[in-house]
């Protein structure tokens, strides 16, 4: 398939999946669309970060949720918030952007920490270590209730970001009968996606990107040529984790609260599904992968109603995750290069 055919398929699929939302929902389409596009932006950002790890460098990272979690928790704890059972509001805090910056750095450092095993371990072992480390992070966050709010989580932090909303923005959004707070988060996450992609476009065609691809292909050869493969991998881990950190922050703002069950391994698997759907190693793939993915997800209840007459919440959740699992399997089996991945650079058929 040549490039243009690939793009046509991608665009057709993207628009038809969005059109499906209109067909299946007689009313409130705009709201559903806004909701799904917000999630899509946030997850696209996470998938872009994962693509730095896996697509660019070949690192089998299954702990992505923890990078998102570190970014979110560190940022939220630095801005005014309320944590824990008592929910006492902590009024003091840094301005959002400064807190975000520290959150990104924290996520990157956690990436560095998680990357240390990558120095020594082959692919499948790294997968096990990263997923385990992410669970350790989650269990510790849940356990450290006095700081993180434990199972009660963190709330009342939204205004730190929402207070920057311009008046004209509110007016425009309200006139469409949409919720300004959510659209604001969605807008900011899509802006972040594009900024990050601009950066990555530059990086992945640069000597640095070339070096990461070389690490992905053959570490021994990289070392034999005098390059520090370990350091390159760590840098990749840090960059991807930092990007995931931003995504985690927006995820928290979109929910309006944060607690540990958000960052379970399933979150990581969602991001993997999006990355594979968009195309491993493709810069723009996550954008389309994420939109299509969330369009499907947002129609889960319609799909569930084909199976059940009156599906309850549990069955809906079940159907939704079944679809995700099925999607991952079918893609891997029938189209591992996803929508926009290059067949010639297909990573997933590596032995």
């Amino acid at each position: 398939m040549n490039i243009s055919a690939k793009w046509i398929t991608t665009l057709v699929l993207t628009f038809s999946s969005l059109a499906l939302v209109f067909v299946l929902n007689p009313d409130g389409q705009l709201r559903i669309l806004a909701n799904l596009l917000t999630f899509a932006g946030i997850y696209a950002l996470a998938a872009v970060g994962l693509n730095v790890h896996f697509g660019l460098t070949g690192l089998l990272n299954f702990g992505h949720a923890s990078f998102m979690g570190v970014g979110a928790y560190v940022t939220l704890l630095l801005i005014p918030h309320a944590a824990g059972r008592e929910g006492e509001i902590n009024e003091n805090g840094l301005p959002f952007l400064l807190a975000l910056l520290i959150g990104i750095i924290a996520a990157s450092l956690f990436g560095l920490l998680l990357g240390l095993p990558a120095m020594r371990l082959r692919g499948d072992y790294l997968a096990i270590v990263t997923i385990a480390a992410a669970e350790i992070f989650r269990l510790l966050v849940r356990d450290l209730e006095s700081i993180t709010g434990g199972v009660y989580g963190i709330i009342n932090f939204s205004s730190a970001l929402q207070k920057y909303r311009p008046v004209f923005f509110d007016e425009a959004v309200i006139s469409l009968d949409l919720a300004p707070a959510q659209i604001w988060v969605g807008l900011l996450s899509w802006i972040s996606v594009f900024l990050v992609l601009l950066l990555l476009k530059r990086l992945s065609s640069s000597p640095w990107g070339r070096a990461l691809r070389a690490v992905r292909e053959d570490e021994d050869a990289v070392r034999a040529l005098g390059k520090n493969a370990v350091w390159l991998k760590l840098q990749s881990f840090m960059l991807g984790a930092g990007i995931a950190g931003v995504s985690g922050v927006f995820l928290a703002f979109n929910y309006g609260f944060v607690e540990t069950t958000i960052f379970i391994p399933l979150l990581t698997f969602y991001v993997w599904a999006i990355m594979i759907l968009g195309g491993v190693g493709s810069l723009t793939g996550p954008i389309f992968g994420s939109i299509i993915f969330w369009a499907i997800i947002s129609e889960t209840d319609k799909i569930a109603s084909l199976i059940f007459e009156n599906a309850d919440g549990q069955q809906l959740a079940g159907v939704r995750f079944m679809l995700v699992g099925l999607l991952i399997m079918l893609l891997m089996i029938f189209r591992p290069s996803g929508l926009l991945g290059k067949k010639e650079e297909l990573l997933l058929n590596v032995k």
Partner: protein
Amino acid sequence: MSNKLLEVKNLKKTFGGLKAVDVEHLSFNKNELTSVIGPNGAGKTTFFDLVSGFQQGDTGEIYFKNKKITKTQPYKISRLGLIRTFQLTKVFDRMTVLENLMFSGSSIKNDSFFQSILNTSSSKKYESDLEERAFEIMQDLNIEKMSESYARELSGGQKKLLELGRSLMKNPDLLLLDEPLAGVNPKLAEDLLEKIKNLSDQGITILMVEHNIEAVMKISERVVVLAEGKVIAEGTPQTVRSNDKVIEAYLGTAHE
């Protein structure tokens, strides 16, 4: 000063009970083309691994340019000017031939994250010089037509050429070639041998493992014979060829 470029002393490596390498002393002079030969499993590849830092010896010392490089990381050894190739060719499959070469030649500074973001005019200049150099090498090795092909599309022989070219991008002082002719068709093998000889004439010190005895005898100035990890003979091709132990190691069944 001494003319020794590489020297190993008392180098031992065992796997379980098996002595893979057990070399008391070996040294290699500047500008010499030396071949290391020996039956399969003699420890040649392991010897290369030890010298290039990919494996750690149980005992022993290794000196390169009079610097002790025992227990040094492979990439640091490589930066000193000791470049190796692999018996099972290791090219960057999903990168183009040109990218393979340019990556190899690129400096640490040029590879750096911030340099890459800034993409200054001086780094653009550096890249275009690199590309020029890569094309020179490709022309020299007759693979310039493949410059935009993915490395995995190359034939076995072409991959060997690419690996050699990639090493040359580093302007090595010492080149370790592990079976550079294996799997290469006879016609290409002859060219490749010629290339290796030329490189040696240009002043690169070469240490080569090769099974093709005729080829070895033709171009080597010195031959080292390993069997069961030990040096059983060394000298000029002529002296080695007539050595009884060598004949036994190759033809006799005593050593299995």
